[in-house]
């Protein structure tokens, strides 16, 4: 992964304005993604993990205005401040998207074949007939049986797993260089989840894609991601290679999150480990460390200013924790 990163995000801040409120779900996030790499963005609901990926590409529902600042370089093109047409030309062609709920993400009134084929028509300049053939190929590629029949079916005639396969086929139809998968397995059953994750990995290596995997499930992270970025209250609190972050978490929030997962060694009937308190309600940016109120290690300095994001003692792992920083300084 020595080459120039395909995606370089710096100081990304997003304010969402709606008819009723204004919130800042993404507050100064920075990360990089190399070609062929999988980055998992992990966080609870409301941590800003989805908005981070979707808002900069203009994918926000009606009634939500996203004000974006910072810098996002995708393939050395600046996305922040780009006009709608530029973003539109990237969507589908260079960046594919997979959504959480394949039932609502597919159009119920159109045949799945058409929904896949139109991507090929639009981005690969194919005729309707050629695109139909391409759709058939894609349906085979995502491992659906009876591809000819599937093309003619409507989403409600398919099971949840098959719908998600259709969604994947749509996302990869124009062979994008980056795939953004938002909780691709959350709406699915655990047995199907394993199939879909395996398919995603397979397609990623076959097509040489980079992938951003948005999830809250550490199990999914462990199996699929090269690197992981943990988000809390709109900020990235820890990033690093998956195996290191998961086995030696540095930030107290990551530690708590990983510790909270029930383990095989836990005695039956024993108490559950978790974090105290509740996540902050989104709104105005928080001064100091957002996790301070729930943190067991907090000191007075935590509340003073936003903790800088610095390398930790573990190679490749960075975290934004004042206590860690102080400790690191003392060691040095």
């Amino acid at each position, binding site marked *: 992964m020595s080459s120039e990163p395909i995606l370089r995000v710096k100081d990304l801040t997003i*304010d969402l*304005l*709606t008819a009723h409120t204004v919130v800042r779900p993404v507050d100064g996030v920075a990360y990089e993604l190399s070609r062929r790499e999988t980055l998992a963005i992990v966080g609870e609901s409301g941590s800003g993990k989805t908005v981070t990926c979707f808002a900069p590409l203009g994918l926000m529902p*009606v*009634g939500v*205005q996203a004000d974006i600042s910072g810098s996002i370089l995708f393939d050395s093109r600046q996305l922040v401040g780009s006009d709608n047409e530029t973003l539109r030309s990237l969507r589908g062609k260079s960046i594919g998207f997979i959504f959480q709920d394949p039932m609502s993400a597919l159009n119920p009134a159109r045949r799945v074949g058409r929904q896949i084929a139109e991507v090929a028509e639009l981005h690969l300049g194919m005729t309707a007939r050629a695109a139909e053939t391409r759709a058939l190929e894609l349906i085979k590629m995502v491992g659906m049986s009876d591809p000819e029949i599937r093309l003619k079916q409507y989403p409600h005639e398919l099971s949840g797993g098959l719908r998600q396969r259709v969604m994947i086929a749509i996302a990869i139809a124009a062979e994008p260089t980056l795939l953004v998968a938002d909780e691709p397995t959350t709406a699915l059953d655990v047995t199907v989840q394993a199939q879909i994750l395996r398919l995603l990995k397979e397609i990623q290596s076959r097509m040489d894609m980079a992938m951003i995997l948005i999830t809250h499930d550490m199990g999914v992270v462990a199996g699929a991601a090269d690197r992981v970025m943990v988000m809390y209250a709109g900020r990235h609190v820890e990033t690093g290679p998956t195996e290191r972050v998961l086995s030696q978490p540095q930030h107290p929030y990551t530690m708590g999150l990983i510790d909270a997962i029930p383990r095989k060694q836990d005695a039956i009937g024993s108490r559950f480990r978790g974090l105290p308190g509740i996540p902050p309600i989104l709104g*105005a*940016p928080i*001064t100091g460390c957002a996790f301070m109120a729930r943190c067991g290690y907090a000191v007075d300095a935590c509340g003073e200013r936003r903790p800088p994001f610095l390398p930790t003692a573990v190679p490749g792992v960075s975290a934004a924790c004042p206590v860690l920083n102080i400790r690191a300084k003392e060691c040095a």
Partner: protein
Amino acid sequence: MQPVRPLLKAIGAFPRSAVFTIGAFVLLGLLAPYIAPHDPNAQDLLIAGQGPTLAHPFGVDHLGRDTLSRLIVAARTSLVGVCLVLVCAHAIGIAIGTIAGYRRGWTDELLMRIVDVGQAIPSLIVSLAVIGIAGVSYWNMILALALAWWPGSARISRAVAVNTMNKPHMEALRVLGASPVRIYFVHLLPTTIGAVLVYATADAGAVALAIATLSFLGLGIQPPTPEWGQMLVDALPYLESDPRQVILPGLTLTLAVIGFNILGEAVALNRVPKPLTSRMLAARRRVTAFWAKEARP
């Protein structure tokens, strides 16, 4: 109190223009006898067909009656008629709809089939048929329109009732062992009435149009009681010489109805998000600008 609260809350969320027009219509109807400058039925053939004067700002009709006073008093006729029709129709509709939605099963099937038939036939046909059989009179008109309107109310009430009954908080009450009386009267009925009240208000325009149409056809409000539709049909023979007397009642009626229709559109689009207006954007951006300033020091 419970059904009124959501209505008040909804009124707060209504488009200003709708609240204003409907409010004006209701006020005009309530205060009509006190603000009408002349007796609406006082004839003065000497000035018949005269144009606007200081005494008669909107002129007088072919019998010399003051048009402004007649327009104002007609608002009351319309308001009372609309209210009577809506109260009768929704009393039947809500009763049937909530019973169907609460009981479900065959009761629901049977009641909704009847409603289906009632809804398949346009409301004006139903009213015309009833009047055709029962004869022309004020109460026959009210009865006819109520008969035409209750199936719609029953359909909506049933949808609301079914939706409410399926809500986990209602299921929780059932699991807690709440009696059917408590579930129906304390929770289901007030919730349904509250939701249907909004629809009823939005529907009032259609009822006002129907009353005017029946009166236009000579089957509703009878002279000399002033009513917009009937004023219009009265003036129609003089369309060429005095179009004002045709246009004024028509325009007033349209104005009265338009408020309800704005409301109806707002209700239909209630749950659909809209793009932010520039004013809203500016207000929200003031907040974020404040954040940026706060974060700097």
